[in-house]
């Protein structure tokens, strides 16, 4: 996530209306979960949020922090569907306004709080949490061990962290592709200072922090289908997108296309559930 204070990622700095024209209604900007390839984007995103809620054992007594909360899809889902008390953190002020408005409209204001700050620098976060979630956000954070240590410090004993991330497929692929043009494009234009790591590095950082690894989920094919559906939306809404910013539809399509070409070859998308326990 980039921000007005941290203008590192040209992609997230696009006019917010752009995202409303290719994401689903919840504006969830991460992989869905498809029970069948024909599932709609909305259905897949709802299924995914339900899966995340299950993996962190979310109940109406749960207190959760969502790192990189974006336009609040997961925050509002956990508060509205599971009855959790949720704090979202994102560096982008206009995302906070958007989420808080939706929370008010849904009568969820008492269970939703948005903090505007980079996670690494935030000082006043709740502690003793039941769960921390980070969907595609640690890629923007260079010091992964520090992020995991901070997240673990916010969890109660036996609390869980769900982290999903785009990864190089293995160390050899990383060594081969970390400095080629296509990767630079993906890293700079798409992930904005992103640090793609192989899964083994995420696992090593989690272990070294003191987490137990409870679950690993391969989301790669689900993300491929998600991006296909985003591309369909870009094509269907090309005229409206180009009215906001001339030429943006073709740029977006190229950018999503490049992301989708590498899945399975150079990149994977994994979720990890980490447990603050021996």
């Amino acid at each position, binding site marked *: 996530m980039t921000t007005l204070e941290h203008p590192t990622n040209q992609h997230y700095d696009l006019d917010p209306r752009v995202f409303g024209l290719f994401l689903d209604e919840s504006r969830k900007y991460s992989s869905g979960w498809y029970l069948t390839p024909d599932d709609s984007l909305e259905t897949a995103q709802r299924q995914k949020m339900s899966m995340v809620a299950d993996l962190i054992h979310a109940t109406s007594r749960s207190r959760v922090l969502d790192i990189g909360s974006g336009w609040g899809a997961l925050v509002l889902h956990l508060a509205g569907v599971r009855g959790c008390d949720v704090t979202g953190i994102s560096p982008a002020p206009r995302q906070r306004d958007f989420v808080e408005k939706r929370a008010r409209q849904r009568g969820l204001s008492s269970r939703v709080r948005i903090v505007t700050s980079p996670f690494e620098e935030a000082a006043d976060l709740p502690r003793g949490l039941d769960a921390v979630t980070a969907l595609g956000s640690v890629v923007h954070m260079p010091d992964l061990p520090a992020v995991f240590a901070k997240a673990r410090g916010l969890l109660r004993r036996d609390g869980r962290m769900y982290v999903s991330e785009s990864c190089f497929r293995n160390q050899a692929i990383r060594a081969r592709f970390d400095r080629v*043009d296509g990767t630079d494009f993906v890293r700079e234009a798409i992930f904005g200072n992103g640090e793609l790591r192989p899964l083994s590095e995420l696992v090593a950082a989690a272990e070294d922090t003191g987490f137990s690894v409870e679950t690993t989920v391969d989301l790669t094919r689900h993300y491929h289908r998600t991006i296909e559906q985003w591309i369909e939306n870009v094509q269907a809404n090309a005229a409206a997108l180009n009215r906001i910013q001339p030429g943006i539809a073709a740029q977006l399509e190229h950018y999503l296309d*490049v992301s989708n*070409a590498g899945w399975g070859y150079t990149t994977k998308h994994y979720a990890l559930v980490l447990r603050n326990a021996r």
Partner: protein
Amino acid sequence: MTASLDQITDTVRTIVADVLSVPADELSTDTDLRDVEGADSIKVLRLIARIEREYDIELEDEDVFGVSTIADVADVVRKAL
């Protein structure tokens, strides 16, 4: 029936022409795919993906990232069948 190398080469040429948007008859079997006008590493990856789907195979990384001509691609496909 096992496809002959010639049949595989023709299929590969058709897919390369489609993905790189060039006429098939302008593609010789020893053209370096990355030198074709408008080609880039993403398009080469995409055409490998198309070929893998077409033949229901998964090529080794060394082949995916190592092939440079239509003849190379046809050769690794034949070995994978």
